[in-house]
């Protein structure tokens, strides 16, 4: 394996498996980076210090993050004196138990990718309007500590396994957002943003209760799983009793049935049936979300702010499937018979098929976005230096995931702004972030990450990866022409 690929693989593996916080890491660092027009996305009340801006399509901003809630770099890699290299916990000399001990009862790996195709903003008197059109894909995969134990060690160490919360949720949608902020005498800004959501595809695991008790005599598996899905272009076979027809599904998805040229399929499996453009645009899966917030300067040099984001939902109606699988099954082995054509493999498959039948309906359903609440306070030490604290909580499945960030922003002059941040994610305390925004003429570039310094200085504590970068054309940022940000020092 070429070294570069191996390195990338390692980093991706690390990134996927590591997450120091218990929450998704939408970067907090740029909440107070006023030079970045898209800071408005974290607080709709925020008004950029330029009169208008136009983002470069695709990368204004481009956001990517992966995170896990349990593992750090050091849980996966350790230094091995024998080889003089870092080894994984799966290495012959690795410590698998240390890895398992580091896991939470439920471990979540989340990845997100968002790309804004259109991002414009402009000022009208005391109003500031924004219009954004973005593509958003979010995925979160969760597994229990018992699941990892079973995969790594089998059932040699324990008999009972709780696989509950084993899930993979995916959400892909378009977001068209129109925001407005109003400035009251530079002391108070109030803003809101309405977002039209157009769903493309979704998998929502509503319930995943899976328990297993094993012994050499029998394996007892009990499960109760509800999954809703909107699978564009997928036409799943359902038998007359309302169960997913696994046999047909297998044959429909079989690439061997398709014409091949040089071994390459020339079409799509029968399972896939493209129909119309409405699916591409997500018109059949409409949704709505709302963001709102404020900035308030109660006294000179002090700013308090709050925002609520992503209060919304998507109603999934296109190619929807509601799966329910309930099982209470004791496996005592394959039943032996004296028939000449006894086939243990077939016997096992038959018994599994009979107990893992998936009841399938096709009713529309609603999925909710993960709402976020930000509470912040900033102190402007000088015109160029600002210190801030930010508390953020994300609400998902009736659970709260909290982060706390403090940051220092230094803006030596109007063309440059840099931010250093420190965050606490759950039990992770080694999270240094970095933000940089540069403006030259009408060009603005920014890059923000919550983890890069940590990776550099304390790689052992490295636990997640996120970045956000953007290119904008900004206009009217000259203090004499544009709406100037709050004067830090009069």
């Amino acid at each position, binding site marked *: *394996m070429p*070294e*570069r690929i*191996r*390195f990338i693989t*390692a*980093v991706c593996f690390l990134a996927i498996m590591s997450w120091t916080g218990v929450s998704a890491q939408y970067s907090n660092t740029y909440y107070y980076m006023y030079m970045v027009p898209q800071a408005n996305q974290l607080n709709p009340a925020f008004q950029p210090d330029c009169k208008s801006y136009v983002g470069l399509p695709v990368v204004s901003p481009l956001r990517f993050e992966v995170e896990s809630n349990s593992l750090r770099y050091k849980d996966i*890699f350790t230094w*091995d004196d024998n*080889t003089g*290299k*870092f*080894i*994984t916990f*799966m*290495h*012959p000399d*690795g410590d698998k138990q240390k890895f398992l001990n580091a896991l939470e009862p439920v471990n979540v790996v989340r990845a997100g990718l968002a790309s804004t195709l259109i991002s414009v903003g402009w000022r009208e008197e005391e109003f500031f309007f924004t219009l954004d059109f973005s593509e958003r894909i979010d995925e979160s995969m969760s597994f229990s500590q018992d699941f990892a134990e079973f*995969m*790594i*060690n*089998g*059932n*040699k*160490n324990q008999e009972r396994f709780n696989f509950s919360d084993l899930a993979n949720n995916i959400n892909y949608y378009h977001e068209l957002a129109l925001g407005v902020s109003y400035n009251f005498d530079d002391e108070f800004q109030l803003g809101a943003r309405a977002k039209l959501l157009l769903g493309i595809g979704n998998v929502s695991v509503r319930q995943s209760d899976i328990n297993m008790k*094993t*012994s*050499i*005599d*029998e*394996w007892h598996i009990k499960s109760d799983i509800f999954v809703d899905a909107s699978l564009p272009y997928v036409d799943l076979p359902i038998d007359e009793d309302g169960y997913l027809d696994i046999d047909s599904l297998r044959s429909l998805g079989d690439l061997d049935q398709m014409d091949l040229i040089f071994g390459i399929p020339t079409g799509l499996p029968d399972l896939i049936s493209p129909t119309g453009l409405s699916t591409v645009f997500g018109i059949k899966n409409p949704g709505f979300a709302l963001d709102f917030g404020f900035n308030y300067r109660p006294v000179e040099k002090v700013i308090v702010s709050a925002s609520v984001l992503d209060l919304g939902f998507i109603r999934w109606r296109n190619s929807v499937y509601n799966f329910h699988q309930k099982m209470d099954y004791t*496996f*005592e*082995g*394959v*039943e*032996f*018979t*004296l028939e000449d054509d006894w086939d*243990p493999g077939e016997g096992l498959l038959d018994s599994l098929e009979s107990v893992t039948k998936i009841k399938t309906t096709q009713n529309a359903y609603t999925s909710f976005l993960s709402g976020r609440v930000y509470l912040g306070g900033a102190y402007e030490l000088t015109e160029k230096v600002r210190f801030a604290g930010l508390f953020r909580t994300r609400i998902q499945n009736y659970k709260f995931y909290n982060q706390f960030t403090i940051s220092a922003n230094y803006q*030596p*002059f109007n063309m*440059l702004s*840099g931010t250093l941040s420190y965050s606490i994610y759950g039990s992770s305390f080694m999270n240094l972030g*970095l933000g*940089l925004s540069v403006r030259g003429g009408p060009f603005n570039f920014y890059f923000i990450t919550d983890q*890069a310094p940590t*990776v*550099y200085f304390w*790689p052992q504590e490295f636990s997640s990866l996120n970045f956000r970068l953007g290119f904008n054309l900004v206009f009217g940022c000259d203090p004499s022409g544009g709406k100037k940000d709050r004067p830090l020092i009069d």
Partner: protein
Amino acid sequence: MSLIRFLSYAVILSLVLAFVSCVNDEWMADKYDFTVRWEPGYEGPLVFGDLSIEDMLTKFDTTGYLTEDSTGFLYFVFDTSETVYAQDYIDIPNQDFIQVFFQSEVDIPGSTLGNIGDTIKFIQIKSFEFERTGDEQLDSVYMKGGEIVIYVTSTIKHTGILTIYSDQIELNGRQYRQTIEISDPSGNFTTTVTVPLAGSSLYLDNSNPDTSFLEMIFEFELINSGADILASEIVHITKAFQNLEYQAVFGYVGVYDSLIIDKEVIEFSALPEDFKGRIQLADPQLHLRVGNSFGVPFGIDLLDLEARFKDGSSTPITLDAGVNPIIIDAPDFSQVGQSVLSHTAIDRSNSNINEIASTDLTGLQFSVNALGNPTGASENFILDTSKLDVKIEVVIPMHLRAEGLEMADTFDFEIGDGEDFSRENIKSFSFQLETENGLPLDISTQVYFMDSSDEKLDSLFNEQNWNILPSGVIDNDGKVIMTTYNKVLIPLTESQIDNVFIAEKIMMKILVETTDEGNRDIKFYSSNFLGFKLGAKAEVSITTDENN
């Protein structure tokens, strides 16, 4: 741009560039070793089964069938059968009755016959002998097919009316009467009349013990035409009963004597070539089951009885005096249309059959002779549906003792030391066998691992500790009254695992003995079963070196 501003730019950009470009050494790819060793341990069930004795015995021998009595006691039955039908026993042949009804010895002038148009009646009563195929003396015959064909020729030059009737023939519930008009006085009259006999009854006169008669009356009413009757002129009648099919016959039907089965051999399934040991059947039997719907008693003789053995030899089976013939009862006149079942068993009480029942027995030869009316003349009946179903069953009650039964089979076996899976991938292996034995058998099994030249490399069990499934607990009658439970965990040693991987064949050997080392007779019932559950525990080790 002022110098300070320029310197500020330069410093910050330098810092950024330095930060971005200087990757911590820790992130260099050559600092990582991605070798993975996966060493899980899994334990779980593999196979289970509840094998009934019926399943096992049926698998063992498919030429017979297994049956059970009301207590569930099992028998193996091998059978063959033969049937005697009514037409085999008696047939009614065609009957040709020829009657020259009228012929004058001299010429008769027409003037002597009276006035023209006067009638003169002639009557003849004739008893025809009813042709037989044997010594039967039938009282009555009920016909379902056939016909009477009457052929009349007249050369006299007069017309007339011919009437034929018989009190011994009943047609459609009435006396048989047939009138034929001789309408042509030219002397060239001929006619043929056919009368269907379906539904008719013939009542035969058996007053003469050696023959049967059927009486017919012929009346000819001549209508004088005035012509002379010459000596050469006749009225000729031929009466034939053809294609006779009876529905039922009553009376003495005669003797039937036929070898209906001639030295037939019932063969049992061959045991495996390398079968060792001894089985002694406690009570082998040969059963004669006859269903008789003839109104005729039969005597069945079982002849040529021989036991055939694996080595080609045979031993006669002798029946006690008086066993042959076996009298088969017949339905009486209140049971017409019914079948009467007779059953006779040839067993240790009336033969030496138990002496020949051993492991090497491969078949049984026999002949069957059937004799109708073995005790002489009697009142019988036969319907067209009557038949004699003779079934010979070799019955092997599952009442036996066995010792030293050893069966072995060798299979090709190769786990091999492949690239993907080798000896190094197995850290440990053990399996658990849990059994519930409801059979009256002690069963021991052994598995040998052998090389290509059939040399034994190792065995799964040691010779002192075969995996023994102890027999169920039996009562004095040889019936299992309680199952025996056994559970054994067998860990494979390192050397055993080594040998498994180099073995090219495995031989499975099973040793079976009836309870108490084959020293007493046991009985198999349909409730007997062998339950087993096989589980395994293994620790594997799989290493992938992603660095290469």
